[in-house]
Every structure is written in structure tokens, then in C-alpha cells.
């Protein structure tokens, strides 16, 4: 374990922003903190950075306890959603600022700044001021500024959220490539599941101040632990146990042994096969063309369902279809609202 957060709790008055949270980041790993707004992910990032005090628990870097180390002595790098470049300094001065504080000789700073400007592909902007740059350019510079000091951990707080779609996806790829090359352990906060899936080695999904599930992107997508994760990580069909038992008992084979209300079946829309069948149990209600695939909404014995099929639309509205689902494609997720009887 490189960076460890141990049993951290943070309260604001009566509101508990983080409740006994523990996470860890390996050397060179890219970790995403994913969750809806207000879930505590930004608070956790700020605690790690040292910008907010911890009520209970510890943050450790290898064996060093960080709790008493002020933010300025932690040697971390941070990038905010709002760019946050110093408006009175040029691009080059911004990038070199951390080195200047560390009393690095000017010639060395200049060389490092030039190198970083090459890395973020903006060498011609060295003497511009932040106000003269586009959002995407500013965020690239903010990234260069954060990595200029060879940070022990790179913290990214929704760095792509303020950018428009095209810039966002290109900068996303660049962040990924940069992190792979430099091997800086990185923690990124985001509410965008697509971003997390594309970037992370590990995703930590949070809700209401607790970690709901942590694992690889594949884990979280195909094997969500709870209804919340299943819902948050893309579209899924969630079906109560008794309905499955009545209509498709074969799917029960993988189900953990637990009360009916504790687990629901989760089936991703692309894992359902549909075929035109006049005696089928489901009816096509509507179809939406999404380019590479077609998304159907069905009225079925399980209620409304979502199914995705590669290629153009082949089935028409009102047509009867039969459903095929393999038991291995059915994941059983904990119903978050279920309370285990004492």
C-alpha cells in the first residue's frame, strides 16, 4: 500500500460527510472516486491533500502519518475543476511556481518548464497569461503545474467537468497516457461513470459518505455489489427475486442464500437476447437508434425492460419478442433499502 486512508470520519455540524472510510492506492495506480454530488468524494480528496482537517482516523503515506503535516509540506500535486491558475503569473511562472518555492535554481526551473510545456503540447504559450487561454489549455497548464514538482500523489478534483465534450475526451486520454508514463499514484474525483471506466485502474464508488464498492472497472460494471452501484454504473434491468422465481427460475442458480427482499437480479441491457416470436412474452414498446446499436424498451413479464442490440433497428414497435438470458449474465445485487433483520 502506498497511500492509505484508515477509518476516516468527517462531520460538519450534525452532517456526517465521511463515515468511517478506508481506501488505499498502490504505487503507480490510477484510482477514481466516483459518486453522486454530496457523497463525500471531494471531502475525502481534500482530507488527503491536507486542505481539510480530519475528525477521526488517519491518512498514511507508506508508513508516514500525514495528519500533522500541513498541506504545503505534503509534496502533493492538485488540479481543480476551476483551473485555478494564478492570474497574475504567466503560464511559465505558474508551472515553475512549485519549484521556485523549493528554491530550485532558475536555469533548472526553465528547463523543467520547457519540458512540461512540451509534454502538454503547449510550448508556444509560455509567456501568455491564464486569461488569454481557452479552458482546455488552462487545464493542461494546471496539470503541468501539478506534476512539475514530481508530486508524491497527484490529486484531480473533477478536472474535466468544466470542459466541453470534445476537449474533455482528448484531455482524458492525455491524462491517462501521462499517468501511465510517469507512474504517479493518482486519485481523481468524478461523478461521471464513463470517465471513471475509461481512466481508472480501480474505482471507489461512494454514496452518503461511505464506500459502497471498490474494484476494477470490470468488477463494478459486471459485478456491482448493490443496486446503487448497478444503477450508477450505466443502465441496468433490476428485477425483484420473486418475479425471477416465477418467470425465469433458471437465473436463480447463482443467487446467494438470503431473504427474497435482500437481493435483486441485475441484468445489463446488452446481455439480453431478443428474437421476433409471435408467442413471445414481451412486446417492443419503442426503439431508439444510437448509431452503433439500437436500444429497445420492452413491456415484459418483468415490467419495463431495456435491451441493447448491435446494428440498426430490426424489430418494430408492437412486435412480440421472446427473451433469452444466460444465468451467468445475471448478477445478484444487494437492495440498498433492505435492512438486515437483527
Amino acid at each position, binding site marked *: 500500500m502506498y497511500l492509505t486512508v484508515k477509518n476516516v470520519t468527517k462531520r460538519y455540524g450534525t452532517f456526517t460527510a465521511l463515515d468511517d472510510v478506508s481506501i488505499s492506492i498502490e504505487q503507480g495506480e490510477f484510482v477514481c472516486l466516483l459518486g453522486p454530488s454530496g457523497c463525500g468524494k471531494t471531502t475525502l480528496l481534500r482530507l488527503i491533500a491536507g486542505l481539510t482537517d480530519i475528525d477521526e482516523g488517519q491518512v498514511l503515506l507508506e508508513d*508516514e502519518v500525514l495528519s500533522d503535516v*500541513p498541506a504545503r509540506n505534503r*509534496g502533493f500535486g492538485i488540479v*481543480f475543476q*476551476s483551473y485555478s491558475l494564478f492570474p*497574475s503569473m504567466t503560464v511559465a511562472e505558474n508551472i515553475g*511556481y512549485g519549484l521556485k518555492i523549493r528554491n530550485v535554481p532558475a536555469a533548472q526551473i526553465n528547463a523543467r518548464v520547457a519540458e512540461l510545456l512540451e509534454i502538454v503540447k503547449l510550448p508556444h504559450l509560455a509567456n501568455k497569461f491564464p486569461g488569454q487561454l481557452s479552458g482546455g489549455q488552462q487545464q493542461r497548464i494546471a496539470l503541468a503545474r501539478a506534476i512539475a514538482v514530481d508530486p508524491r500523489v497527484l*490529486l484531480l478534483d473533477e478536472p474535466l467537468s468544466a470542459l466541453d465534450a470534445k476537449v474533455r475526451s482528448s484531455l482524458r486520454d492525455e491524462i491517462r497516457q501521462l499517468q501511465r508514463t510517469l507512474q504517479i499514484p493518482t486519485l481523481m474525483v468524478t461523478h461521471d461513470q464513463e470517465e471513471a471506466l475509461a481512466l481508472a485502474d480501480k474505482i471507489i464508488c461512494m454514496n452518503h459518505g461511505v464506500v459502497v464498492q471498490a474494484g476494477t472497472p470490470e468488477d463494478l460494471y459486471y459485478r456491482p455489489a448493490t443496486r446503487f452501484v448497478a444503477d450508477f454504473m450505466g443502465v441496468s434491468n433490476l428485477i425483484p427475486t420473486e418475479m425471477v422465481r416465477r418467470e425465469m427460475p433458471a437465473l436463480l442458480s447463482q443467487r446467494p442464500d438470503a431473504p427474497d427482499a435482500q437481493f435483486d437480479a441485475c441484468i445489463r441491457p446488452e446481455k439480453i437476447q431478443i428474437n421476433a416470436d409471435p408467442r413471445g412474452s414481451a412486446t417492443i414498446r419503442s426503439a431508439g437508434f444510437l448509431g452503433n446499436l439500437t436500444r429497445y424498451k420492452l413491456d415484459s413479464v418483468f415490467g419495463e425492460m431495456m435491451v441493447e442490440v448491435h446494428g440498426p433497428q430490426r424489430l418494430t414497435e408492437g412486435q412480440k419478442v421472446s427473451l433469452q438470458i444466460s444465468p451467468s449474465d445475471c448478477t445478484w445485487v444487494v437492495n440498498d433499502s433492505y435492512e438486515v433483520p437483527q
Partner: protein
Amino acid sequence: MTAASTNATAKRGMRLDSDKVLAAACVAIPLIGLTLFFLYPMATVFLRSITTADGSYGFANYTEVLASKGFWRATQNSMAMGVATTIVSVFLGFIIAHGLHRCAFRGKWMIRGVIVLPLLAPSLVQALGLIFLLGRNGLVSRAIGTEVDIYGFWGLLIANTLYALPQAVMIIGASLVLLDARTYEAAEVMGAKPSRQFRDLTLPAIFFALLNSAFVVFIITITDFGNAAVIGGDYSVLATEIYTQVIGLRNFNMGAVVGIMLLLPTVISYVIERQSMKRQQGRHATNVQRFVPSFYAKRDIPMAAACFAVVAMILAVIGVVIYASFVKLWPYNQSLTFKHFDITLAGGYDSLWITIAISLGAAAGGTFLIFLMALGLRRLSGGISQMVQVLAAMPAAVPGIVLGLAYILTFNSTSTPLYLLYGTAALIGIINFYHYHTQAFLTVMTGFRQFPMALEEAATTLGAGLGRTAVNVIAPFVAPMLVAVFFFLFMRSMVTLSAVVFLTTAKLDVAAVTIMRLDDAGLTSQAAAFSTCVMAVVCLALGGMKLAIILMTWAPQTSKEG
């Protein structure tokens, strides 16, 4: 950086964080200043007001003052003057602000330029100008051939109105700018006539601004000393009453009583004003669409006429002072000369140079102290920070004349080492700073509030301590605010009279007091000449400020070469 990591490791463990110490010092130093030079003198003036002739404590002074006819007359006069000036100033201020922001006519730049002139001169310049226009030998009086008695209520009312008008226009104007054009477009589409829109949309929205401006004008009027001293004549008001008690009769305790009495209405007005401001702040809408008026003859021609009439009056009153300073023998020989600029009163221009030096000191020191305070407050916890902010905003509730009285009672007493400050230019600089502390503090705080927390956090994460962040990141960001505060303190220090009138000595005079003495000595033309010089200095400062701010907003948009 491996250097950074070892550094951080070495500094592990419980210890006093240098940043926290620095932040505490940043607040402590200005706080000591506020205590010594504001709280302590105010406590002293209160104590003196309840110290009786035989040295014991009691309310004998109060009963004596309350029983005296002179005090009641002065109180009545002050209240009557305050109410009358408030009504006239708010009415005219509303006309001008409405004309500027919601009517379409040419020449608004002229109105904007002239309306601030009264702020650039000592308050007694209005009175001086009125005497040159309407006095016994005034231009107007001679032209129409009748003698107007300008000394007294009416003269003071006009002088006070001209002096208070800029504030009213600014406060009301600020609320008119915030009105969203889209709500008016919606009302228009729904079929509301302009008069209806005014009644249903404009009036409710600016109600608090009208109220606020009324309080501000009222306070300015009842606490102003300069106009009352020059044009008040026999019409005694509380501010002149204090002066008579202290300077004329050497009756310090009675002066203290009148000071405390004058403090009451201003504190009450101040509290109400702060409350109404808070309520108004809650109503601010974000991304307001600016209203661009189009020409509407029935509304705009009368409004333009009214605005220009008021502006012409201000211009005439101030212009005549400048003109008179060049006239050979007012009003008989109107040929022009520079001879009045040769000041014959003892000391000559000494007081002007000293005032400039004092003002520079007050501006530089004050701006620095307030920057420190605002910086420290960013790092302090809520409760303490709130208390400090309340204290920092308190001096605005104290009239200059009362603060001046408090200073003479405090610093003219040999019982503390603070006596060393008495009679020095430094003390005048200090009183000027604390007199205008609130406005300066609020301006800088506004700047700090706009400063994004993320910028500070970015600097911190990069390894910058508080001192470094302050110099490299925060100071450049709030620089326009600091420049504005520097020049504000400078200009106010140049023209203020009420706070410093008690602190000047035979050896140490300031510009505004010299003007008063010249006028008292019957050297009216020289008083005009001296006023002209002061106004010239202040105008230069204003120009300097505008230039500095333009340069600052320009600089970051052009790239550095090399």
C-alpha cells in the same frame, strides 16, 4: 521532488504550525491598533462624560447638559437640519440616479464627473462657494440686487445637501444597476405601462437603497462640522456645540456628554443601515441582464433638465470658489490675479505639505494594516473572525467630531505613555485611518471574498506558506482593491476636518483647518485659494488612482516577452 518528501517527513509530529502563528500575528497587530486607537479613546470619552467636576462618577454632567437651553436648541436644530437635508438629498439623489441608469439622454459623463466633486473638497468648500454666490457680496445677490441672508438654516441646508448628494446618488444608483432588464421585458409583454412598471418593479426593488441612503445622508449631516462652522451663523448644531464647549469654554466633560449624545442617533442609524443592507444582499440575483434605456421624450427631457440643473448648481458652487481665488478684489475688482495664493497667515503652505505627508502615511500604513487583517481573517475560525469583523466595522458609527474629541481626551492626558503622540503628525494620520477604517476594511474584504479559495489551495499544495501565498498570489489579485483603498484613505485624509479639528496645535495645522482659520480671519479669497490647492492635489490623486487601476487591469492581458 525528493527534497520535498524528506522535508515533509522530518517535520512530522505535533508542533506549532508557522502559518498559524503568522495568521494570528496578522490579526493581532491591527487588533492592537483598533483597541488602542479606537476602543480605548471611545471608552475614555464615555468615562469623561460621567466624571463630575469633583472627580467622582455620576450623571451630573448629563443632567446639566439636558437642563441647558443651548443643548436643546442645538439638538433641535441638528434634527431639523438632518431631516430636511435627508428629504432633499434622497429626492434629488433619486432623480439623478434614475436619470443616469434608467433614462436615455446625452451628456451623462458630465453628470457622473460633477457629482463626485463635493467628495474631493473639504466639506466647508460648499459653504464657502455659497457665500461667494449668495452672501452679502455674492455674485447672485449683486446681480438681482437684493440681499439674501445665506447664513443659517437655508444656507446650511443647501451646503449639506450638496455635500451629501454624491453618497445618495451612489447608493441608489448601485441598486438601480442591479435591476434585471428581463423582468421589465416580461412586464412590458404582459401589458404594464412604464408608470406601472416603476411602481410595481422599480420602487419595491430600490426601497432598501432609499432607506439606506436616507440613513447615510442623515448621519453625514448631523455630524458634519465644516459647513456648520462656516455658514451656520447663529444656527448652532450639535457638532458646533461640541467645538464651542471644548475649544471655546475648555469644558471637556460637557463636550464628552454632547459627544455621547451625538453618538446615539448615529449608532442607531448605523445599526438599522447594516440590517437593511443585509436584507438587500439576500435579494441579489446572479447574472443580471443590464437595462439599456431607449429615448422616451416625455420622461427623458424633464429628467435630463432636472439632472443638469442640480449638476449646474454643484459646478457653480465649487467653480465659484476656484474663480474667486483668482479675483483681485471680490466682488469689486473682477480682474484676475495670483496674489491670493500668497498665503499671509502664519505658516503659509506648511499645513498643505504636512497634510500631504500625513495623508500618504495614513494611506500606506492603513492599507497595509487592513491587508494584514483581511489575510489573517481568512485563516481564523468562524467565531473569532466574526467578532473581529464586527469590531473593524464599528468606527463608521462614530462621527469624526466625536472621535476627535475622544482623541484629545485620551492623548492629551499625561497619565499614559500615549501622551507622547499628542501634537504629532503621526496622531493625525492615525485618527484619519481609524475614522475611515470601516469603509477601507469593507472594500478590502470584498476583494478577498472574490478571491477563489482554490487558488490559495493550489498554492498551498505546491508548497507555499501563508506569507508566500500572500505576496505571490493574493496581493496581485486584490491589488486593485488595495490601490482603491490607498487613494480613498489619502483623499479623505486630505479633506477631512471634523476628526482633526481638535488635534491641531499652534505648531501643527492641517489643510482643512487652515482654510477654516483663513475664513475666520476674513481672508476669504485666500481661503478660496487654499481650497483650490487642496482640490488640485485631491484631483491629481483621483487621476493617479484611475490611471493605476487602468494600468493594472491592462497588464495581465499583454504577454511578457523574453
